């Protein structure tokens, strides 16, 4: 085959695909809001800018969420049929699974935006006054005491959300890569925007960027190999190729492995987790909350889609890989978390351990299993969001007091904060009547039959991880407050709303999970051909 033939061949198949614009509306709304945000930066005077940005961001996210709700039930494009006449030429799958994940991401993003919009606990907000000023310089010190805020954080966040919305509905690896970059680049910047401890924050941003760039390169490399194998970057074409292709399987497995490196990195799964504690610790806490919940939902959505749509036919081959990384994640998250003394880092290790638990649901291909994964990421997202939100409230002169010892005896000062934190930690530990338990139960039940030993391991590591959650509870309730105990700030309405929603969802999904389980199960049907 010479190259001119290939070109001619390609030229023939290119025709304008039909595009169901209404199905893209949530993504367009978020992108549009992001662009408006950029204009606001240019046009609105500084005193009004913060509130305008908050308004634009929330309006955009809420409108997108409502649109997702309206679209719910309409299966605009499903992953399996591919042809020039299928919507988006099969490169996007706005199906039940996609909409469920988009809805989750948007709901969590609204909460994250509310946390970022909090101004009453710190001067200005948790976001730096001007990111470009040199740390410790005269101008930096002046700005840090002013009400000035780098409000670009809002459009950046919206751009990231738009990438996250595309990520789990991409039915095409190249599009998935673009979405990955769109969601990642703003996150790198946002990680560096902390108002306090700016050097730590900038270090986190650089670390995240360098490692993230590596991971993206791996993803791209894997994509190239898979193209070589399947002659297409469409997930469904790769699926067909796994059945029919006569090419070397080495291309397929190497391609999948490299692709997974990129995806596992984003979902902070061991052994690609090393950035997580540093970045969660260094980033402004509301941004950590955003990264820990929304990014995780989007990444697991993408992993689900890649495994279910492209590789379902070869499942006996990749299953050991998922077993291995699941165990690695649980071990790293549970064991290394034990030695941490900073609550933000503990939450980071907890997020690694939880990623391991979620992966247990990915070793099985079934409607129940994919529903359980979607349900788990949802419960985890809300709980984690609220937990990071609470961290912003306990403060001393240097900003947030996140060292474990500073939280000792906090229950005496603020029973409310201690009580909420306990609820969230118990949920993460998987105690019944909380969302965390329902999620774990759902995932483990789905996986028990084909991966019993893995479930038992996951349960044992849940017990290990429970130790560090309980250690925080012990500190809060049973220990003496330190000499210079931190104060507990009274949150403004935005944080209060986010915290209330997070805690309410944690309880409701523990006690009455049925509606959301039904929704997830119905949505997951779209992945099973």
């Amino acid at each position, binding site marked *: 085959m010479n190259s001119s033939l290939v070109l001619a061949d390609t030229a023939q198949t290119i025709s304008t695909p039909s595009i169901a614009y209404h199905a893209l509306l949530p993504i367009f709304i978020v992108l549009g809001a992001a662009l408006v945000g950029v204009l606001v930066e240019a046009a609105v005077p500084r005193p009004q800018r913060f509130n305008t940005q908050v308004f634009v961001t929330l309006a955009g996210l809420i409108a997108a969420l409502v649109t997702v709700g309206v679209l719910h039930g309409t299966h605009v494009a499903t992953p399996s049929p591919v042809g020039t006449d299928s919507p988006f030429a099969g490169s996007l799958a706005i199906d039940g699974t996609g909409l469920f994940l988009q809805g989750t991401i948007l709901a969590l993003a609204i909460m994250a935006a509310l946390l970022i919009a909090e101004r009453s606990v710190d001067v200005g907000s948790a976001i730096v006054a001007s990111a470009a000023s040199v740390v410790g310089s005269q101008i930096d010190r002046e700005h840090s005491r002013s009400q000035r805020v780098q409000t670009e954080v809002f459009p950046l966040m919206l751009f990231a959300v738009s990438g996250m919305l595309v990520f789990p509905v991409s039915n095409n690896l190249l599009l998935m890569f673009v979405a990955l970059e769109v969601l990642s680049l703003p996150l790198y910047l946002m990680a560096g925007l902390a108002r306090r401890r700016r050097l730590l924050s900038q270090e986190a941003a650089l670390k995240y960027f360098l490692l993230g760039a590596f991971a993206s390169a791996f993803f791209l490399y894997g994509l190239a190999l898979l193209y070589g194998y399947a002659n297409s970057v469409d997930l469904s074409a790769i699926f067909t190729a796994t059945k029919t292709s006569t090419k070397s399987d080495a291309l397929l497995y190497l391609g999948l492995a490299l692709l997974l490196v990129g995806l596992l990195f984003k979902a902070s799964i061991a052994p690609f987790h090393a950035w997580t504690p540093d970045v969660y610790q260094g980033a402004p806490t509301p941004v950590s909350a955003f990264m820990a919940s929304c990014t995780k939902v989007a990444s697991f959505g993408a992993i689900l889609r890649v495994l279910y749509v492209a590789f379902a036919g070869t499942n006996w081959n990749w299953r050991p890989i998922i077993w291995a990384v699941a165990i690695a994640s649980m071990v790293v998250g549970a064991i290394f978390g034990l030695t941490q003394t900073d609550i933000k880092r503990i939450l980071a290790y907890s997020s690694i351990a939880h990623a391991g638990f979620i992966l247990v649901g990915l070793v099985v291909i079934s409607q129940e299993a994919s529903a359980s994964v979607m349900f788990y990421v949802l419960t985890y997202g809300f709980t984690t969001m609220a937990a990071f939100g609470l961290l912003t409230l306990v403060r001393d002169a240097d900003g947030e007091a996140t060292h474990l010892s500073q939280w000792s005896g906090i229950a*005496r000062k603020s029973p409310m904060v201690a009580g909420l934190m306990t609820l969230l930690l*118990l949920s993460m*530990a*998987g*105690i*019944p*009547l909380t969302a965390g*338990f*329902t999620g774990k*139960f*759902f995932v*483990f*039940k789905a996986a*028990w*039959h084909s991966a*019993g030993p893995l*479930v*038992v391991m996951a*349960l*044992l590591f*849940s*017990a290990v991880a*429970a*130790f560090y959650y*309980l*250690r925080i*509870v*012990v500190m809060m*309730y*049973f*220990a*003496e407050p330190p000499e210079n105990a931190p104060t507990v700030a009274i949150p403004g309405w935005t944080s209060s709303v986010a915290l209330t929603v997070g805690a309410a969802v944690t309880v409701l999904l523990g006690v009455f*999970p*049925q509606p959301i*389980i*039904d929704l997830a*199960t119905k949505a997951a049907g779209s992945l099973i051909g």
Partner: protein
Amino acid sequence: MSAAQNVTLPILLAIPLVGSLAVFALKEAQAKLAKQLTLLISLIVLVYTAVVGFSFDTSSGAKRFQFMGSWTWIKAFGVHLAFGVDGIAMVLVGLSVVLVPTVILASWNSFDSKSGAEEETSPSGAPRSTKNFMGLILLLEFFMIGVFIAMDVFLFYVFFEAMLVPMYFIIGSFGGPRRQYAAMKFFLYSLVGGLVMLASVIGLYVSTGSRTFAITDLIGTVPDNATQKWLFIGFFIAFAIKAPLVPVHTWLPDAGAEAPAGGAALLVGVLDKVGTFGFLRYCLPLFPAASRWAAPLVLILSVIGVLYAAFLAIGQRDMKRLVAYTSVAHFGFIGLGIFAFTSQGNSGAVLYMVNHGLSTGAVFIVVGLLIARGKSRNVADYGGAAKVTPLLAGLFLFAGLSALALPGLSTFVSEFLVLVGTFTRYKALAIFAATGIVLAAIYVLYLYQRVFQGTVSEKVTKFRDLNAREVLAVAPLLALIVFLGIYPKPVLNIINPAVTATLHDVNQHDPAPELGPVAGGIK
């Protein structure tokens, strides 16, 4: 499962829950109101349970599980809010609701007055919240009742795990100097057991393929093969930790010693019974073959527990640790009775659970009252207290004698039944276990001698004898111990049908009597 919707038991469950929320909603300054309200609610629960208990049908044609009510909870998992009691659950609910008011009375001043507290100064330095303690006790009562009346394995698991939370706070917030360590150890031990059990709960659901967690539908459906053994092991580990059986008992002496006396009474009196109750309700009926397979090991561990814990108890210097060890020894007897698979053994084990709850509850409360006076758990700090506080000494001796199973007291009946039931099948084990009775006499009387006899130590001279409230807290327990010692029939009538049904599930029949109809008149 039939769509029975009997609300008798849900109402019983709702009373302490609503009460607990009401007490938590009170202000810190309303401690007195909180105490009165808690006592009132616990008495309402007691009366309500008594009414339910008297209407429990013990006639020969009666259903095994009564007051059944079932509502769909999580449809996707096949989970029901299913409640019901058999005779075993009924008497254990009775035990729980009897102990709660006595604990409340005994802890009346423990956290708001210096004379009532068990320590010279509160270990945390800060005043403790009586209101929170009372709220936690009622919340615990809610979970305790729930765990016994749940008829759905999932629901049972929920209560089983959630129950840890109030107890964790009772130990951690109101306990002694090493309470952080003890609370953590208690929680982690139970949680590990619980999570292993969760694996089995899920496995049970998946392997039976019945798409339900209802016990009545699951009994007899677990395939009789290796799966059954694995599932059994999961449940067994959880219950063995809870019970606690040697060698996974090490959390109990710490938790029992550091918990406030009232909390310890409930911990040892009721919470630990959940383990032995679990053997009877879940391990035996659901996994009969595996239960028979594991019985020799469990029996040997039980006998080791009886002897080993008794020796440790004799050597303890800390009074509460001592009592905690005696409980480990007693749980050995209960394990023996259950896994001997004879009707006397099983009936004796269930009766033992009730009696031990009453007896150890009384011992812990009396020890707590003594410690509140001496501000020390160390036996050596006391001496000759009988001369100063004769009433306290008398009640202490009474409770102690019930712990060593003096004939005429209820504990004797159950210990005798257990030993007879074991003897008909395993003579050697029964003989070994019987020596535990002698050891019990040593640790009880030796403790009494060191604390209440001999020269009056200087510290003891300032002791105040029990007041009416304190006597009122302990007296009902002791009265019940005497009553059931003389006339155990009402309780045995409730227990026996359930025991027969359980033995039928596990496919075991009493061995033919070799020595004549021993204790044949018990039924």
